């Protein structure tokens, strides 16, 4: 299954990639449809394999299907697809019966797959597992099954970068080419000069998707204009923002799109060597990228004399060793050179003095994946998407308290409200929406009043947050904003590289302040109380100094979560500081526990375990917690076998 499929190589290269106007005759179209399994001759079941679905148990499902085929001597075929991006319903399988539309089943783990297969192979739709159906050519529709593009999660999306995810097999280059892949590369190397390409991208007004939002075309042009015997392209896929996974989604499920983007970029700036700097934790992504690079070499789409154009490119994968600061381009270059990843002051920009001192183009993975479609459909088409100053689409990943978790792609300018309540299906367990955090540790958190804001660079900056790389976290009413910001403060003080003082000391100081406002006074010493208040008063000033004086983006934006939360959730800060009370009960050191006298049997286990000796009572009678002594560690809550201890 994993071998490079060369069955269609000659056909695809000659008839598709080398075709003059890319208008195909019926025979070609039929073959392309056959590659994409649009018309099934035998029943086919597709399993969606991704990191997330493996965690959900897709491997067991695949094993079961293989056994099922053997046992029943069935004509059923098993094929692999990528993930659709909607994570909490995984593992997914699609089933396609001859002449019928492809139908999607959710939660298809080892236990449920038998029911699904047994009923669908007898043309009965098992409704409890059915998600929807794909419209495929002139196949017959299933009755009473919604179309996939009518589901809330999908109909609010505009998929350009994610066009293929879940629909093709990420390990099969044929399927990618059959969907129109690598045609843009063929077009670029045969019809455009490098400079024309740079101007073309500049005209499309595409902006970098990694967080900075700098014009991609300008970056390309300045790298192109440098004269050097060697230039490099680096694709930044080191997604170390915790809880963000939109680039992983792309690379894992459509690696060829990224390769195509890199190849076009390298041709445009005149580079012959490219690196993909990817997180070492992304094992499946790396595996699939390696495979994709091998297959592309085999098809003559990478390597020497690409598509007879005389252009050479070698792409290598470098695994990041885990440092958040590598998102900053000069630090990333240091890491690729085998040094400690510390940012440098700019200028000189990497376009002048980059990897090994040579001109280097660094783009985020998503930015590069936008390139093929811009070349395919033109700048005018791209400029119609989004709003002024922010063209095109952006991928996001959502985690937290929303109903639908996953990665999705929307047009820039979409309102936050539509995303939260429509696409993500609102808040789960009938709770109320409280806050949304955008952009990871260098983004900001905003409250309910701001949900009318469109997602676009300038209006988000106005309310104190940022698109950043695209990580989205949704908090419900039972989550504590202070605790959440403390998590990022801790993350940043760990990840600060230590080169410049404002960031190194400032991030540490911010965490200290948060630490102090989220715990009860442990000693009666007055200086500690004084320090605590001093810290709180200076918090805003400190955040401002960091913003103004830090060397790189990490330090400059490190205070964003703090400033934005102070702006929108000031009352919550006040509650923590003055009343020493956390309404949500999330700040562990501010908690107080109480014992339910009805349930307590007096077994003494909590009293024995309490490190502060705060639990008193007599054996076989209900115990009590002395509030002033309790430090909120929660050990009693964990050891109680009768569930008698709860949060006050």
């Amino acid at each position: 299954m994993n071998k490079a499929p060369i069955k269609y190589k000659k056909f695809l290269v000659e008839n598709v990639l080398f075709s003059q106007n890319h208008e195909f005759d019926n025979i070609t179209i039929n073959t392309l449809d056959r590659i994409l399994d649009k018309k099934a001759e035998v029943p086919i079941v597709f399993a969606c394999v991704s990191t997330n679905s493996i965690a959900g148990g897709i491997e067991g499902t695949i094993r079961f299907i293989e056994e099922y085929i053997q046992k029943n001597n069935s004509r059923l075929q098993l094929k692999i697809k990528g993930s659709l991006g909607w994570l909490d319903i995984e593992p997914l399988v699609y089933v396609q019966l001859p002449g019928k539309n492809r139908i999607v089943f959710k939660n298809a783990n080892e236990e449920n797959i038998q029911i699904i297969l047994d009923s669908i192979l007898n043309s009965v739709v098992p409704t409890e597992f059915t998600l929807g159906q794909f419209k495929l050519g002139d196949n017959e529709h299933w009755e009473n099954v919604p179309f996939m593009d009518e589901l809330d999660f999908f109909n609010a999306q505009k998929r350009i970068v994610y066009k293929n995810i879940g629909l093709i097999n990420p390990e099969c280059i044929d399927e990618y080419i059959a969907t129109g892949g690598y045609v843009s590369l063929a077009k670029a190397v045969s019809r455009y000069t490098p400079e024309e390409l740079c101007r073309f991208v500049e005209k499309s007004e595409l902006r970098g998707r990694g967080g900075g939002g700098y014009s991609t075309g300008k970056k390309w042009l300045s790298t192109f204009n440098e004269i050097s015997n060697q230039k490099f392209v680096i694709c930044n896929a080191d997604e170390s923002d915790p809880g963000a996974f939109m680039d992983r989604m792309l690379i894992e499920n459509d690696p060829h799109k990224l390769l195509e983007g890199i190849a076009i970029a390298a041709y445009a700036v005149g580079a012959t060597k490219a690196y993909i700097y990817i997180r070492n934790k992304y094992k499946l992504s790396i595996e699939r990228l390696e495979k994709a690079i091998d297959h592309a070499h085999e098809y003559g789409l990478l390597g020497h004399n690409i598509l007879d154009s005389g252009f050479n490119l070698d792409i290598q994968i470098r695994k990041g060793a885990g440092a958040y600061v590598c998102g900053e381009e000069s630090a990333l270059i240091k890491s690729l050179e085998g040094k400690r990843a510390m940012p440098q002051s700019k200028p000189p920009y990497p376009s002048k003095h980059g990897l090994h001192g040579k001109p280097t183009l660094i783009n985020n993975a998503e930015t590069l994946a936008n390139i093929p479609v811009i070349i395919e459909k033109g700048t005018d088409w791209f400029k119609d998407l989004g709003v002024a100053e922010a063209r095109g689409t952006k991928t996001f990943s959502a985690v937290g308290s929303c109903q639908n978790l996953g990665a999705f792609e929307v047009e820039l300018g979409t309102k936050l409200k539509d995303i939260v309540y429509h696409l993500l299906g609102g808040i789960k367990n009938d709770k109320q929406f409280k806050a949304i955090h955008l952009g990871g540790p260098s983004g900001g958190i905003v409250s309910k009043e701001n949900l009318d804001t469109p997602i676009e660079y300038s209006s988000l900056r106005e309310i104190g947050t940022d698109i950043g790389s695209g990580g989205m976290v949704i908090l419900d009413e039972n989550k504590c904003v202070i605790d959440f910001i403390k998590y990022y403060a801790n993350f940043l003080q760990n990840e600060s590289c230590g080169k410049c003082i404002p960031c190194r000391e400032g991030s540490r100081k911010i965490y200290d302040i948060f630490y102090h406002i989220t715990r009860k006074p442990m000693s009666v010493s007055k200086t500690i109380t004084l320090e605590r208040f001093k810290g709180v008063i200076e918090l805003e000033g400190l955040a401002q100094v960091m913003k103004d004086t830090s060397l790189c983006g990490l330090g400059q934006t490190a205070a964003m979560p703090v400033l934005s939360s102070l702006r929108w959730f000031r009352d919550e800060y006040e509650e923590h500081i003055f009343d020493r009370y956390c309404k949500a009960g999330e700040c562990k050191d501010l908690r107080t526990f109480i014992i339910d006298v009805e349930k307590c049997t007096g077994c003494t286990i909590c009293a024995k375990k309490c490190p502060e000796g705060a639990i008193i009572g007599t054996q076989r009678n209900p115990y009590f917690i002395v509030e002033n002594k309790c430090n909120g560690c929660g050990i009693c809550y964990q050891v109680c076998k009768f569930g008698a201890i709860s949060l006050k």
Partner: protein
Amino acid sequence: MAQLEEITQILSFYSKGDISSLIQVLQDIQETNGYLSEESILEVSNYYKIPSSRVYGIATYYNQFRFKPKAKFHFEICNGTGCYLENSELIGQYIETKISEYAKGRDLSKLVSIEKVPCMGTCAFSPVLLLNDELHIHLTKHKIDEIFENLDLKVQDE
């Protein structure tokens, strides 16, 4: 000694003059040995003819590298945003309490180790835990109790 041979073999893939492959070398060594031992760092610095302090400085800078072997039961608790919001911290705390319950004052550091790791990318199933490369999802206190029942911590007494 077997370790040294492996290291020499890894190093033979990389050119002596090209220092930019240093991180890749360290990653490869960690992949085969599970950690970076003192000897391996000395060996690498010898190979590239750079001070061992520099190799060590680079290795300690990155989160990925560890300098002690993993214990027999290695708990990796995901500390990504998704898991944090689903109380992965409490889960970590609970595992620690469980371990100290089993330890009864003994030193179990060779047997059990806990590590907080950055996001593993399985946010839909949070909180998650990787125990010796086996993934446990949707953790609850009850599930951790079950995991501990299946660990043979007691046999390893002496």
